[in-house]
């Protein structure tokens, strides 16, 4: 017969001298340092542009905190960072990345490349491997050739460069839409009798903007944590340097523009 010491604590009979009330037991409280503020972000990289968009709702459970919270931040050197998950961690991460990119500029007297910033962000996330930032970041920028780049991460710093990605509470709704509309999955050349798949190519910016807006308006219909407003941030190639800009250290070759438009508030 098994002795009582072999059983897990929960299965052991309470010792006879134990006071029967709950109050005499050691009480354990569970406080979580994490919370979830909802929302969704979406990044798409093109031939010479990057689009990073997020909704502007911030929620906690069934409460809407505010309808005007931004999830996409300009982090300096022509780069942008979208964060979704716990907003306190996300904003802290954006501050830290902004600071580090500024440090890089001051230390090396040049703007950080998007690929170097991508590794740096990975290290920042991994440094908190055992108390992770509870947010999923998307880093966007133009690479050395002026081609759009989106870097996607998990909570602890695994990353890869991708063409398009949705993160957040409506990611499951938007991802298959992107597969179909950006990567042209399950689309075939007309008249090929479903034999010849369409090849995904470079989409013009105007088309992608439409796809992004459609993705968000659809997500709003089915996901209660998404809505209120759309913050659409675009990086394009800046026009060639003028005479005055020739010695301008702040010139990055990237032009960032922000567009705010309404989404349904219900």
């Amino acid at each position: 017969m098994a002795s009582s010491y072999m059983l897990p604590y929960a299965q052991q009979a309470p010792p006879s001298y134990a006071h029967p009330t709950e109050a005499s037991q050691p009480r354990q409280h569970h406080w979580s340092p994490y919370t979830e503020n909802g929302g969704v972000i979406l990044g798409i990289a093109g031939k010479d542009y990057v689009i990073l968009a997020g909704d502007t709702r911030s929620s906690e459970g069934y409460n809407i905190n505010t309808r005007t919270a931004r999830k996409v931040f300009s982090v300096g050197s022509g780069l942008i960072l979208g964060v979704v998950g716990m907003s306190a961690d996300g904003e802290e991460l954006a501050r830290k990345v902004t600071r580090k990119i500024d440090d890089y500029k001051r230390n090396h007297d040049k703007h950080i490349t998007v690929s170097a910033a991508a590794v740096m962000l990975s290290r920042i996330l991994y440094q908190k491997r055992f108390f992770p930032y509870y947010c999923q970041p998307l880093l966007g920028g133009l690479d050395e050739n002026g081609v759009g780049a989106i870097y996607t991460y998990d909570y602890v710093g695994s990353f890869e460069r991708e063409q398009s990605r949705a993160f957040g509470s409506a990611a499951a709704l938007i991802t298959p839409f992107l597969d179909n509309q950006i990567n042209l999955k399950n689309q075939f050349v007309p008249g090929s009798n479903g034999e010849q798949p369409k090849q995904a190519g470079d989409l013009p910016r105007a088309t992608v903007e439409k796809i992004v807006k459609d993705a968000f308006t659809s997500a709003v219909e089915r996901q209660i944590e998404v809505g209120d407003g759309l913050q659409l941030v675009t990086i394009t190639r800046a026009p060639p340097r003028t005479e005055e800009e020739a010695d301008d250290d702040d010139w990055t070759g990237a032009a960032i523009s922000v567009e705010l438009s309404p989404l349904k508030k219900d």
Partner: protein
Amino acid sequence: MNQFPHGWGRPRDDVYGAYDASYLNSTEPVTHTQRPIVTGTSVLGVKFKDGVIIAADNIASYGSLARYDNVERLLQVGTHTVIGAGGDISDMQYLHLLLDNLLIREQYPADDHHLYAPQVHTYLSRVLYQRRNKFDPLWNSILTAGADPKTSEPFLSYVDLRGTTFSAPALATGFGAHLAVPILRRYVPDDAAAEALTQEDAEKLVEECMKVLWYRDARSGVTYSWAVIKKDGVETGNKKIENQSWKFAEMIKGYGAQNI
């Protein structure tokens, strides 16, 4: 010479004696706040045309016991900022101490260096976020209200025990987030509506919300403190909820003297 690198740069044992590590072995365990004890309930804040109004009642509860009925939960910080705290009262009082010290350190009016609401809010959010990172939270949700002395631009922001921050033209903490925010948003859905709202209407709106909270939040009180912050400074006062009607209570089965 000591050949072991770990000894380099340290006081030599043969000169100064061995390092006294006794202070590291405290007999008491490290304790963290794991639940609030004496608590305050909601704080309300609304932006209006040229300022912002903030209000909080004067009750401090011990569980369901209304333990103290004359507690000031609003604090003026500097010349153009008022903070209001819900949650643990002792943590709130500790934050008041931190803010007093912050002002002594940082406020130099003669050098035109002031702390206004955005600075106070950022400071509070950093303190609260740091404490949550240490798993030792300050158990509060706080509204920071203020106005810019030059532009009279109103400021209103929220921060809580996890360091979550956000801003809106109308905000409420605690029970107020459920009961008052829907009423406030009906009148002040966005910044444009706040810019059209008069001070008089804002005061009425807050009064109405405090009354709803008094009716429905069992941890609320009948007296409350309010503060209006505008370009020219802070105006504060106390109010009692008037014109109460408990007629709705007759409709509730099991309430008061009824034969059920």
